[in-house]
């Protein structure tokens, strides 16, 4: 009987040790869609910014503080969920003149290398839009953790970066638009 008790105590101690050690291990997170956003802006004739966002997306990421090279980010965006606050313009943006969402129903990002920097990470990965995959690099700032609601560990990151639409063959028919798409990505993830 006492032998069993000793075994239980030993297992409990091991579990506690593992729990203490867990922050140093890889932590998997799922993007919390309620606390995340992907928005963009593009110049129109050099006169104003047209602003928009993607309403539907999902993602997962893994943070490994001990081995930053094992940290990774993955994001899937539904391009048909584009929203620029004008229904007709959104329909045109979904058409073959721009995103051609029926031909290319997915936009994706998958990191290929992650390097820690002051305040976050420098992330390089493959971004696929309009059927074209190109490597992109941007700074992803953040990484603080909070517990909300109780028992749910969460962390968050944000970034701003620019993409040249010609690199992805988007909007060849409309030269009055700016050459660059300025994107803002901010998301929280809840630990799995």
């Amino acid at each position, binding site marked *: 009987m006492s032998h069993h008790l000793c075994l239980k105590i030993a297992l409990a101690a091991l579990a506690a040790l593992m729990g203490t050690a867990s922050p140093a291990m890889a932590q998997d997170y799922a993007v919390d869609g309620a606390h995340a956003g992907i928005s963009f802006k593009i110049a129109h004739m050099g006169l104003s910014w047209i602003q928009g966002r993607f309403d539907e997306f999902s993602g997962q990421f893994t943070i490994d503080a001990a081995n930053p090279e094992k940290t990774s980010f993955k994001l899937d965006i539904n391009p048909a969920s584009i929203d620029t606050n004008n229904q007709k313009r959104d329909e045109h943006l979904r058409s073959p003149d721009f995103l051609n969402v*029926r031909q290319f129903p997915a936009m994706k990002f998958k990191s290929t290398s992650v390097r820690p920097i002051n305040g976050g990470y420098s992330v390089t990965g493959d971004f696929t839009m309009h059927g074209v995959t190109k490597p992109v690099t941007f700074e992803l700032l953040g990484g603080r953790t909070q517990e909300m609601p109780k028992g749910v560990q969460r962390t968050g990151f944000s970034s701003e970066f*620019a993409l040249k639409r010609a690199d992805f063959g988007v909007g060849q028919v409309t030269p009055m638009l700016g050459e660059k798409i300025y994107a803002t990505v901010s998301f929280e993830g809840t630990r799995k």
Partner: protein
Amino acid sequence: MPDPVLVLKATAAAAGVAAVVMMLSAFLFRKGHGGLATLAEVLAVGSGIGLGCWWLGFPPKVPPIEDRDRLLLVLLPAVGIVEIIAASLKHKWVGRVLRVLLALPIPFLLLFGSGWLPAAWTPGGDPSAPSTWTQGEAVEILSGLGVLLAVVWSLSIWTAQRPGGYVVPTALGLVTAAAGVSVMLSGSASGGLIGLPFAGVAAGTLLVCLLVARTHPMTGVVGIGSVFLFGLLMGGRFFGELTNTNFALLIAAPLVCCAVLALPPMQKTNVPLRFVVALVACLLPAGAATCLAYRSFAAATDESSAYGSSGESDAPAFSEAPSSKAPASLAPEPGSPARATASSSPRDPGADEPSPPGDSGIKRPPAPVDPGEDLKK
């Protein structure tokens, strides 16, 4: 919408180069070898469409990942080869079989990799990804479209080989131009634009054929034109907003031309009258489709904005004017640190353009990228 002058220039250039290539190949006609004559036609059509697309700024992309690229780079050359083989062989049934065999998979190849088809049909696709059609629906629809193309292509060739058959390439050129305009008005300017150079190509090749060969059936032009029209309409219907009605009217137009020429009373009339009647008959559905597309386009557009008035916006209307003073928490703070990175966007949209209208002189620090910095304050 694209510049009409540019479109006219591209169409004229396509007609010119197609006519020149046909003229240069004129010696092939004199030998009377059908295969070589069709080869000349295919080269003329290919060079004309290629130059027209390049002139418009829409050369096909490699690899051909969009339907338009696959149509121009893969399918039309394949159609050209089929027509050359068909014209070279004595057994006409071989050509008929080859046309049907190529027509059947063309709808699948045009929609390849798109959200219409089950993801399992795309190599490397995610089998769990949602698709518009189930496997059964996709098989039924693609088969139906393949049969439709085979009928249009075969009947057009058959009619073109009959007396007065040169009305068929003329009709295909005009219907393809109408289809291009209809697709452009249906939310796909880039998709419809490439249809217009074919009208020029058909005119250029027809002119040379009538002047040099006189009785040549032009099966190369007709074969490529039939598939080109079908591909254009497929792009407009499945990737743009072309309606089913307009798709049906435009694909039916060359069939109307064939049907009118096949009517017994028409056999007794002279060739010029047959030409005019058949052409008018096929232009009726094509014109109706273009008018319907224009009406829909005009109804959705007002004079002040390319995308309609603000009343069509998704946003709720404001009951009162919003305050000009932004909430303190949203206003940029002069003291907040500016994170100057290469990726931060300029505040002035003109600074993003090749020729900026001028610096406004207003410099404000951008909001911090990291929300944690805002929290500390």
